[in-house]
């Protein structure tokens, strides 16, 4: 009996101790707080406590960079993109003439004429020069449209997720209006109404892309605004702008960076599709317009469509590999194992 009694207090205190592990949530939030990066489904995320993850993470500022460079497919993606970027940057030096100028006999196959290694098209234009100059337009539109859509998406998503309430309701409705219209139709209509210039195409692609970014950022902000570090910032008297920009945004960025790399790829595809349909800027050459121009000779001179098509495939693949690599590298739980 004595031994039984002496055991009881320990049992009882154990019960109280167990409760303490969840003390942070307390009565205020009945559901456990969602993980900080809601889009990342790490296999160990459910089991790992905050302290576990922090303790395991390699120390140092360059952890993410090292983790990225240890991922071979991500490095390949980066190398491919570097080649495309270099070609785009060096285009005026490599091919100083106008890529739309007729230079030789039309429809020479690749390898036929050493002066034009990728051949000439139906109008006698150099395919390689077109490919290299086309990279400029494709990458420029991809990058600029992504920049605009990320800035717009972050602004709307952050405001919506941080403040909640009626502001949130209104902004979510706005996002939903854009998302219920099929993206590509909206793109075609916008470009058809505006002039098909590069700035107009860029803005039109951004108009189609920003709602996805806004939704992602909103979800991140909603999860992060209840965190202790945000409570601490509010308790210290920080203003809303400072909390949004300096406290929450840096922690919400990793998934946005990953999404941006994929958005660049999507924007390149959208621009190609527009150009293929003849809605691109007629005064510049792009990969999409090259495919469109080769469309009529698909059976006799398929290389005219296949070569720029391959360029798009390789570039988009590279961007997706980079996105995957960033996703892994920016997630401390996955990257520390490598």
């Amino acid at each position, binding site marked *: 009996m004595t031994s039984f009694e002496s055991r009881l207090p320990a049992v009882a205190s154990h019960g109280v101790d167990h*409760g303490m592990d969840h*003390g942070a949530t307390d*009565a205020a939030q009945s559901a456990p707080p969602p993980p900080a990066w809601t889009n990342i489904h790490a296999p160990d995320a459910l089991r790992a406590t905050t302290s576990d993850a922090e303790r395991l993470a390699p*120390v140092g500022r360059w952890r993410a960079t090292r983790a990225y460079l240890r991922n071979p497919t991500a490095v390949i993606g980066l190398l491919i993109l570097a080649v495309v970027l270099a070609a785009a940057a060096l285009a005026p030096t490599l091919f100083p003439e106008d890529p739309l100028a007729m230079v030789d006999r039309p429809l020479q196959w690749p390898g036929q004429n050493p002066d034009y290694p990728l051949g000439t098209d139906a109008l006698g234009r150099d395919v390689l020069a077109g490919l290299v100059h086309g990279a400029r337009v494709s990458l420029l539109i991809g990058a600029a449209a992504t920049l605009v859509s990320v800035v717009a998406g972050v602004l709307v998503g952050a405001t919506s997720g941080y403040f909640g309430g009626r502001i949130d309701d209104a902004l979510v409705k706005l996002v939903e209006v854009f998302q219920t219209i099929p993206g590509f139709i909206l793109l075609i209509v916008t470009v058809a109404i505006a002039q098909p210039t590069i700035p107009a195409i860029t803005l039109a692609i951004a108009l189609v892309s920003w709602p996805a970014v806004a939704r992602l950022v909103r979800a991140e902000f909603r999860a992060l605004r209840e965190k202790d570090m945000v409570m*601490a910032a509010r308790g210290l*008297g920080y*203003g809303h702008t400072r909390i949004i920009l300096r406290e929450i945004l840096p922690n919400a960025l990793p998934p946005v960076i990953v999404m941006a790399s994929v958005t660049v790829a999507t924007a390149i595809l959208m621009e190609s599709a527009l150009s293929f349909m003849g809605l691109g800027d007629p005064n510049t050459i792009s990969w999409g317009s090259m495919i469109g121009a080769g469309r009529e000779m698909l059976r006799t001179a398929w290389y005219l469509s296949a070569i720029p098509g391959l360029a798009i495939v390789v570039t988009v693949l590279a961007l997706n590999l980079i996105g995957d690599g960033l996703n892994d590298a920016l997630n401390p739980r996955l990257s520390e194992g490598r």
Partner: protein
Amino acid sequence: MALLSVENLRAHYRDGGATLRAVDDVSFQIAAGETVGLVGESGCGKSTLGKTLLRLVNPTSGRILFDGQEVGGLSERALRQYRRSVQMVFQDPFASLNPRHTVAEILGGPLAVHGVGDRKSRIGQTQDALDRVGLPRDALKRYPHEFSGGQRQRLGIARALILQPRLVICDEPVSALDLSIQAQILNLLSRMKADLGLSYLFISHDLSVVRYFADRVLVMYLGRIVESGSWRSLWSRPLHPYTRALIDAVPNPTRRRHAAPLSGDLPSPRQIPSGCRFHPRCPLATARCQVEEPISRAVGDGQTVACHHADLSPIH
């Protein structure tokens, strides 16, 4: 005059159709230089009470008076001033420090936001703050993940103290730490109190920690304070059966047990039991307890208790 005076404070959440009464009619005072302990099980509303005092959670009704001034109706600007005087140390030092900021930014941020001094004097102040909590000065360039749990809690304390507050709300500041580190942090907190003349509201589920630390103890159950008094009187003469159960739950080989451990779990704060909210788990419960809610009454020596049968309690 009391430094902080809380009157009939309520903080309710709308949770779907139900109302979650996290803090339900709480009144207490904290005098300048006093350390008040707040104990209770997880989920009883301790943390919500702490956050409500800082207006991180808006009170549903009731008054919070700091230095005689009403805090509930403060504008954004006045609230900022109030938050210089009242600060919080959080439970989890891994979650309460922004992982993307260096220590210099974590400690310098509050000074910059409140416009204290110029850039150079702020750096000096952050160094002083590190000295005070026993961290090396080269910590300024580091990120939170480069520190151990105990060191991070020291950072959390340094951040809470850098604006020279008068009242610090410690929300379970040691329960996320190893036992050996807990003592260090408690010692640091009590030294800070002595050096800076602080008042503390010390929230904890661990009675042995509160006993070490607090002048006066409030016992909270399901959003309400069921007993309060100096730790000495509570420890030697707990009147509420819940307080007694909490004390008995602390392992102590020299003391004989007086009551059976509490059975069952804390009821949901969405459906608070009728009458005395403790009656489903209370060993002394009678029919009266199921209908009539006991009012808090003074029982001498600054002790108050909210129990119909407090007189029946066996005296230790």
